[in-house]
């Protein structure tokens, strides 16, 4: 009889302990449930329907305002981390493929205090200019990074033909979308800030994006 009572006591104690432990573990959730109460307005069917229509109208207006921000014409999105581009028309993806973007190399000049950061800028840009058969006018860093002396601004050695591919599209501040001779590096961050595409993609982008089209880079 005494043994039975003892067992019962232990069972009660163990159950209490388990319950207490559960309460302790969930104490914050319990407190949140107890506190997170608010006064609600009870609505009848008629009011509910009226409110619902009103809110749906409000939602439609907001949706319209939001969709007005999406470019109607083609636009380009560039992911500079994974080196991919996405060409869109509205919300429809027309084409996505690999590209090359900035290498994030900070080139420090040898004897001067000049330095150059080779990164692709992020944000929203527009196509400012389009060129067929572009000629690359090599900037100073192109010589500095090859260990060559920097020539005068209009020296003939600054002009290279064919290295940018068949087309180039300017997005401002000297940044271009262009082709490349080094197709094997596509998909890698190897550029000086420009966006490199392969020949077919460059042609598609050139033909799809008129001047003024948006380019989003992240």
């Amino acid at each position, binding site marked *: 009889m005494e043994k039975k009572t003892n067992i019962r006591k232990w069972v009660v104690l163990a159950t209490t302990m388990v319950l207490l432990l559960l309460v302790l573990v969930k*104490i914050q959730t319990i407190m*949140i449930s107890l506190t997170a109460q608010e006064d*609600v307005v009870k609505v009848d069917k008629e009011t509910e329907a009226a409110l619902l229509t009103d809110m749906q109208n409000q939602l439609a207006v907001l949706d319209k305002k*939001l969709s007005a921000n999406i470019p109607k014409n083609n636009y380009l999105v560039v*992911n500079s981390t994974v080196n991919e581009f996405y060409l869109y028309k509205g919300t429809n993806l027309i084409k996505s493929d690999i590209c090359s973007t900035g290498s994030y*190399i*900070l080139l420090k000049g040898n004897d001067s205090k000049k330095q150059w950061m080779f990164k692709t800028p992020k944000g929203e840009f527009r196509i400012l200019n389009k060129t067929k058969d572009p000629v690359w006018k090599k900037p100073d860093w192109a010589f*500095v990074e090859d260990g060559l002396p920097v020539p005068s601004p209009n020296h003939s050695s600054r002009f290279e033909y064919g290295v940018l591919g068949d087309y180039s599209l300017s997005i401002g501040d000297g940044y271009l979308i262009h082709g490349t001779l080094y197709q094997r590096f596509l998909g890698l961050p*190897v550029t000086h800030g420009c966006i490199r595409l392969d020949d077919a993609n460059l042609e598609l982008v050139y033909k799809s994006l008129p001047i003024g089209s948006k380019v989003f880079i*992240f």
Partner: protein
Amino acid sequence: MEAQEKNLSKSGKTIFLYIALAMILIIIIFGLVKYAMAPVNKLAEWKKNQETIAVYNDAKLDSIQRLIAYRDALLSLSKKDSIHLIINVPDSTLGLFINGVVIYNVKMTSMKLDPMLRKLPQGMYIQTFSKPLSVTLSEASIIKEPIIEKIAPKNPEELLTSVTTPDTLVHQPVFIKLITDNGIHFLITQDEDLTSVDKKANRSFWSGRRMERTKSFLTAMVNFQPYEYQPSVILEANDKALTAIYRALPEQPKVVVYYE
């Protein structure tokens, strides 16, 4: 006489034991109250800065009110000229948003909302999430800009010896923490820990958080201050996508959150 002394010392020890036990119990209860009251204090803090708005006892209306709040938050971001983050729980997506356009969307593989956020009253939800949240602190296991410093070669021969590996080729574990001005912690982590480096980074990220919470709790206990509750949102997605998202965001981005 000796037996009496023994009895006295025994009863003294018992009293001391009882006092010690009572003190331990008081400390435990004190700690427990602090721990239990933390979310209550946080809710009160949020409520303090908010107005009362009409909330209906109707699931359909609740749901549409939340959608309106989400759209309002997106609209207020649509004129901001930098990149911001969108967390859409019903769609399981993490997105990048600039000037009103979603430029990147990635599927989340796991999402966990804090009990406080899950049980947040509708009125508080609407007022909290109908505008973008401002991130005041962002930290990650990866660097924002993988800059490689390079000294220009003196001549073309020296150029050949200065070949570098592009950062994209190197896999790094991605664990991101964003803290908003109202105290929500967004813990965004990669969904797979394939290498030992990943596993180590995972352990370090979560043990760091546990340590920080414990330290905060003990400090609150010792200083008789309230223990600060940290509502959290835990998200998991692909590591490359997270790297792209983290590197795209400015230091203090805005976050738009939507959940049902």
